[in-house]
């Protein structure tokens, strides 16, 4: 206790201190370094989110294509398609699936909907058989922008391919 009191008295009587300029410079330097560090951490988090969403989009796109090929219209994720337009005469189909932040299926009206998968199919029916070569285009979009992103609805992943499947009938679709 006596040692502490002595030390306190000594430090109060100490006439050496920091000038205002020194304080401003040191606090300023630390603030700049701190801001830079926080920026780096925030960027790392942002990039992590982007890569995770991109990976999930690729996986989802492959699942959709393979499900269409396997004619699994009554199973995940095709059972959640909200068809915008189905035209079986000239063989075109347009449908959307909505997902929340955990990639669980939700509806377009849900305010928590964060991702949109747009599916476009178009083809000319083979007159000879019951199969059609379809041009398929899938686009996964983020409905809300990223924290520091420029685009309001960034496209995460888009792919175009062709599939040769049984000609779509209206009762096949959800």
């Amino acid at each position, binding site marked *: 206790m006596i040692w502490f009191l002595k*030390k306190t008295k000594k430090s109060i009587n100490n006439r050496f201190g920091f000038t205002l300029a020194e304080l401003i410079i040191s606090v300023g330097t*630390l603030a700049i*370094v*701190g801001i*830079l*560090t*926080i920026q*780096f*951490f925030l*960027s*790392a*988090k942002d*990039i*992590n989110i*982007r*890569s*995770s969403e*991109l*990976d999930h*989009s*690729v996986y989802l*796109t*492959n699942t959709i*294509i393979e499900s269409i090929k396997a004619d699994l219209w009554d199973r995940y994720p095709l059972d959640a398609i909200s068809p915008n337009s189905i035209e079986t005469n000239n063989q075109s189909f347009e449908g959307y699936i909505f997902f929340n932040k955990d990639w669980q299926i939700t509806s377009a009206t849900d305010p928590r909907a964060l991702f949109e998968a747009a599916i476009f199919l178009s083809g000319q029916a*083979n007159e*000879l*058989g019951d*199969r059609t*070569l379809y*041009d398929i285009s899938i686009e996964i979009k983020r409905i809300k922008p990223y924290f520091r992103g420029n685009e309001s609805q960034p496209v995460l*992943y888009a*792919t*175009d*391919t*062709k*599939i*040769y499947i049984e000609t779509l009938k209206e009762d096949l679709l959800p």
Partner: protein
Amino acid sequence: MKLLKNEKGSSSILVILSFLMLGIFSVLGMMSSYSDYKLALKNASWNQQYDRLQGEVYSFVSDMDAVLIKNEDAAFESLKEMVIEMDDEIVVSDILNGFIIAREFEGESGKLIRLEMAYMSSSPDRYHIKMIKEIPVIFTYEELEFTDVEVPNND
């Protein structure tokens, strides 16, 4: 004991070091997540290329389907001739009661997909896709030289 009684502090060094550590770890974290993102982009690009190539495969299957359906009643040998004439890159090989139609498709980046279709004259399901498979591309290292190394004789 001497160190414990020392009243001189080194708070500035402590602050500098802690900020330095924070800085280093933040840069490391960002580099790690950026390389992860680059890998995700590469994966996405590979998938796009594969999809494009697979589209070509299905387009070919559709053309082949049309030829085979149109000439369903044609003689076996003439049907085979028709298939061979369709494309220069088609390889047809005979099997018992039928033939195998094989073709390889090459993408822009050297990606290779092999398609094999079987045509069986006696089967009710006369032709079907046997295989659509991505073939690993064989490559050789450039300017790689091996030198002879003397093996010591332990005898």
